[in-house]
């Protein structure tokens, strides 16, 4: 099939995608790069000019920059750990012969259909609220002081909310992968007297490696840019306790209207994402090749 002409046809078929994605990437990137060296504040258009690396230095010297960097990675890492572990467990559980499997699956994937701002707002107002939330009602029911989620554990609360949103995605992929696992293999292992733990360790887990890789890769890309949930719940606070790099950029772009600085932050974020992607590919990328 790989004649010269099919190769050419194949190139032509890929070309539109590559072309539009290239435009979609390069135009904003070029503009962002340009703005990142300019003085550009929306509300003071009369001032402009080149500023060199000032904006970059501002970010690197900002008191909360390193914390934000750490928070960004902690958010991504935390959500990944939670969704992968719980996702595998839940997928194993609902893959068993249980009554009402269809309905069950529907319930489990429901969070995936909830708009992120709605999800954040449900959790903030109906659950974590120190006076009106359900959690506080439960704590009071047991005679305890309510936990101040957003004040004392802001980053963990955000990780929890985002994990809830992404858990269905991970579970679904693991479930699909599990369903392709041959039952003969498992049964044979069971006959041989392998314990459930060993069956999981030596048969199921290796089978899931690729699925786990895919979940990590896709979620990382989405999670690195998250700020909506933070904006709705903690506004990056208290202080900077739950500020991530995208949220720092958000504050510069939307609140302070400093487009130059936001652009520099965007370039820094892209560099960070590429570093993460590099290590990710080195660490787990080999699972994707075959």
């Amino acid at each position, binding site marked *: 099939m790989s004649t010269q002409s099919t190769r050419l046809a194949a190139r032509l078929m890929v070309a539109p995608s590559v072309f539009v994605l290239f435009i979609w990437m390069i135009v904003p990137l070029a503009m962002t790069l340009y703005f990142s060296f300019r003085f550009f504040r929306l509300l003071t258009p009369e001032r402009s000019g080149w500023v060199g690396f000032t904006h970059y230095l501002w970010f690197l010297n900002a008191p909360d920059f390193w914390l934000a960097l750490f928070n960004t990675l902690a958010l991504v890492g935390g959500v990944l750990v939670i969704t992968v572990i719980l996702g595998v467990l839940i997928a194993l559980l609902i893959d068993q012969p249980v009554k009402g499997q269809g309905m069950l699956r529907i319930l489990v994937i429901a969070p995936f259909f909830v708009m992120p701002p709605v999800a954040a707002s449900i959790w903030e107002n109906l659950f974590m609220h120190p006076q009106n939330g359900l959690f506080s009602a439960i704590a009071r029911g047991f005679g305890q002081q309510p936990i101040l989620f957003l004040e004392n554990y802001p980053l963990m609360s955000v990780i929890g909310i985002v994990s809830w949103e992404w858990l269905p995605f991970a579970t679904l992929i693991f479930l699909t992968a599990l369903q392709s696992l041959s039952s003969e293999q498992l049964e044979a292992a069971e006959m041989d007297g392998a314990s459930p733990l060993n069956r999981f360790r030596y048969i199921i887990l290796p089978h899931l490696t690729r699925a786990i890789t895919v979940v990590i890769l896709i979620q990382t890309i989405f999670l690195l840019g998250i700020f909506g949930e933070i904006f709705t719940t903690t506004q990056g606070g208290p202080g900077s306790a739950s500020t991530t790099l995208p949220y720092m950029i958000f504050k510069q772009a939307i609140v302070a209207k400093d487009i130059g600085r936001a652009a520099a932050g965007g370039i820094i974020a892209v560099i960070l994402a*590429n570093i993460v992607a590099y290590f990710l590919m080195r660490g787990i990328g080999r699972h994707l090749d075959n």
Partner: protein
Amino acid sequence: MARAASPRRTLLTTLAAWSVALVIFFPVLWMILTSFKTEASAVAMPPEFLSADWTLENYETVWSRSDYPRFFWNSVVISVGSTLLGLAIAIPAAWSMAFVPGKRTKDLLMWMLSTKMMPAVAVLIPLYLVFQRIGLFDTKLGLILALMLMNLPIIIWMLYTYFKEIPGEILEAARMDGASLWNEIVYVLTPMALPGIASTMLLNIILAWNEAFWTITLTTTKAAPLSAFIASFSAPQGLFYAKLSAASAMAILPILILGWFSQKQLVRGLTFGAVK
């Protein structure tokens, strides 16, 4: 992995699975319940489960206060439009990458995914300016294009991995039998690829429906979808939990129903190449 199991074990796993599922679903359920309470009942302490003042008032208020059908229609057009356009561009690309792979196919895929790495907030003003200049601001076409481009890497990747699982031997066999390329595509490949295409389509409709940054930023009245509808009900003055819950329920219900009806298809094709 469906194996015969003892009734007792089935009962136990059923119980466990259902409790887990209910815990995960509970926030959505609680939101829906809240949407049928009065505002005072929604914040009552201790929370009211059965004793609440049930009412449809919130839905009436939300319905009368804003033009829900228009927001809804915009959401449908934008999410379905961006998905179909994305598929039209992605299918040929994924097809050729899967069946005529080159040395750089993997790198190309990774590059495509990497276009999603720029945080949206950082390119807000650049894209805003571009959209304004070329007249795409507050148009459905503009949002269709933006969301299509945003999700295109995911679409291509999903399709690519799915197409790759179609064994090449089947194609060979068909060709041996004298099938033309057209017949090959219509009668052999398409039926095999349909589940993958279907689930890609579903996933992307969901992603586009739930997008809430660009859809609010790049619209005012004509193209504003349900995300903007929600933004007009969050955090006004006074009690708002019940009304916000009602508006949220109205915004997510269509996609929830779609998801429920099609969850089998969604699961079937959602492999992302995760299955060898």
